């Protein structure tokens, strides 16, 4: 029964959805502070390649090396996000242009690809990779076995992150400040909240999440390094934040939905049905376009619950 199409698709939906979930959570944090970062795809790829590099090169037991790999991936993602933060918060550049530039700079034909070649990472599988944590008996439980117990630590950590981010935004003082900075930076500034610091912090943390999301590809799903291995997941993550109305818990559902969609062609193949792969490869871009069109007008953005100051640089009134 666990081999039925539905169960296979759902279980691999969780697997393929995990990088989306990390990246979307990161983007959500940045956007809640008012910073739109279209550089997710680039940050994910740099995170993927640097995380993979750390795992290939560092000595030590598997668990430690993997933890270090995730740490390096997070740092790499945050470093990429720092470029964006500097451009849009300090220099008040257009957020869309800067984000696109970041993806082009760091993306499939850019920095991540260069690093992959230069560090000679292509072609070999990861020395360590994330494994299922629960015993086989639990994994064999009907239906929920593969979905809930057949996953790696990365998946369970992402669930903790969803809860933490949700609690952080709604139940803490700093979370309140973040939302205020994203909704009305002028009001937050007048109350003594440091708008620039909050935007920097959340853009950087967002980048770290994207980096981890990238590493989920190179250390768990693939698990190896190849140019552009994220295949547009960064774009889906951006669309996902919009479809989730900027709410972490809905991001989780959305990520698994898109993940299942990604897994569908493989699962269908296993059942002897072939679908043109191009059809599924276009999905990220179609989803992004649909999402961006949906929120293209300010009125629609507000109705969807977007942070009111999303994408707008904050300038303290001067004459």
């Amino acid at each position, binding site marked *: 029964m666990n081999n039925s199409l539905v169960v296979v698709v759902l279980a691999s939906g969780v697997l393929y959805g995990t990088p989306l979930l990390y990246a979307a959570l990161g983007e959500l944090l940045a956007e809640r502070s008012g910073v739109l970062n279209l550089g997710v795809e680039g940050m994910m790829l740099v995170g993927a390649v640097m995380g993979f590099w750390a795992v290939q090169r560092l000595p030590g037991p598997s668990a430690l090396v993997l933890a270090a790999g995730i740490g390096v991936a997070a740092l790499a993602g945050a470093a990429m996000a720092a470029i964006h933060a500097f451009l849009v918060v300090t220099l008040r550049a257009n957020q869309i242009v800067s984000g696109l530039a970041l993806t082009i700079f760091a993306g499939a034909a850019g920095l991540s690809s260069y690093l992959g070649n230069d560090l000679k990472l292509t072609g070999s599988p990861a020395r360590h990779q994330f494994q299922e944590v629960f015993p086989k008996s639990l994994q064999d439980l009907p239906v929920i076995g593969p979905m809930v117990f057949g996953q790696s630590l990365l998946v369970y950590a992402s669930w903790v992150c969803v809860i933490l981010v949700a609690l952080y935004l709604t139940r*803490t*003082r700093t979370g309140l400040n973040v*939302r205020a900075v994203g*909704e009305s930076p002028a*009001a937050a500034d007048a*109350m003594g*909240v440091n708008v620039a610091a909050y935007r920097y912090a959340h853009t950087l943390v967002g980048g770290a999440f994207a980096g981890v999301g990238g590493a989920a590809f190179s250390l768990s799903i693939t698990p190896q390094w190849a140019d552009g291995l994220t295949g547009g997941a960064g774009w889906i993550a951006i669309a996902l934040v919009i479809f989730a109305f900027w709410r972490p818990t809905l991001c989780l559902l959305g990520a698994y939905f898109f993940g299942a969609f990604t897994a569908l062609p493989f699962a269908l193949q296993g059942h002897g049905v072939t679908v043109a792969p191009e059809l599924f490869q276009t999905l990220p871009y179609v989803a992004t376009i649909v999402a961006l069109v949906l929120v293209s007008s300010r*009125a629609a953005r507000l109705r969807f619950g977007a942070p009111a100051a999303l994408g707008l640089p904050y300038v303290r009134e001067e004459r």
Partner: protein
Amino acid sequence: MPAAVALRGITKRFPAVVANDRVDFEAAKGEVHALLGENGAGKTTLSNILTGLYRPDEGEILLSGRPVEFHSPRDAIAAGIAMVHQHFRLVSPFTVAENVVLGDQRDIGRAFRLRPRAIEQRVAELSRRYGLAVDPRARIWQLSVGEQQRVEVLKALYQEARILILDEPTAVLTPQEADALFETVRAMAADGRTVIFISHKLHEVKAVADRVTVLRRGRSLATVAASDATPRSLAALMVGREVEIGRRHHDRPAPGEAVLQLDGIWADGDRGVPAVKDVSLRLRRGEIVAVAGVAGNGQRELAETIVGMRPATKGTVEIKGRRVRSGDPRSAIAAGVAYVPEDRLGTGVAPGLSIASNVVLKSYRRAPVSRGPFLRLARIRDLADRAIDNYDVRTSGCQVPAWQLSGGNVQKVVLAREFSGEPAVLIAASPTRGLDVSSIETVHSYLREAASTGVGVLLLSEDLDEILALADRIAVMYEGGVAGEREAASTTVEELGLLMAGGREQD
């Protein structure tokens, strides 16, 4: 005892102007001190210095005799200074309590965990003590403008501000709401706080303040006791000469046939929900009809619908008996509608273009300004020079870009252009907002003159003094509809205030 707050020789220069020039100011504990001055006199700059938004180029700030220096709003808040801005600094999807606790660095607010119940309780206590009725759990967007202002005051009280600056606080209030605010202000002063009340309205300064400091062109001119001052003496100080205050002129011919007729107009606002609801109105030749109301009750949308910038979803606009195509400004212009918009530098003129180009913005398609596809530049210069002379635009020439002009002069350029088409109807939306007193007089006289030559003038304004000084008839708008219509000669401020607050018309 040293003053609660004292400013000594404050100077602040901006690239083009000296906004504050050696300003001295002091206010005592428990005092309501008004800062009176025309727009551009430097009131807002001074308060921005006091709240840490700007840093003065020269001079010092003393709190209870101790010199202080503010590097950011946070320092000023920590020193016990709070400000209620003219444009509220509220987060509209947040609740009242969330807004109040935002950025708080002390007790309940400092805990990492938010405790909404405790905050709501504190806010409720404060609002009871100072008569600031507002539900702590309500979200800001659900509140009226007057209630939002109360939230701003609550924020200041919650921060335990000792010095509270109110910037033009009554601009958005009905007369009744303003009276309630004055009571709160007095209660706060009785509590030992210092209230700095910024205004350019003479009677309210007299009503609420203990002392008045008058600013003119960035300088502090004099500080007088409010009880010794009269509106007339204050006005003279503020402007530097004697001015006429609100005299009504009635030397116009009796109104003639209708030039503008609105029938059941509905129009959507920027957010896609109806902002104008079933408005019917008639304006006759030589008549000034005012549309009064608190800001944001559909006045701007109504004006835009009449001039064709906003399509009507229902209803008709007729100019001199002819229907105008909805949502087509050219059709409205051709029918004889002139428009002095609220946003004069964005909608009224093209700021980057010269005065000359702006003067012919509406007539460039026809002779004598153009011939075929070509503009006749010499003619345009002549027309512009004549406009500059006739309307007394202070500028060095007609090729100066419009953004370099002061507000009053921009308005004169707009008026010159709009009157040049010999309109049948003039729509003037807040034509004097932000202007200095002498420019206001000029604009008023042009409006009266237009009416006496047979133009129907529709004046949209939030300033009841202006409305009572100019209008023959007054329609009050509330939540997009007309709450009532009154003859100017027989109505009172109280009655209009009631209508502005949505009080039903009693027939």
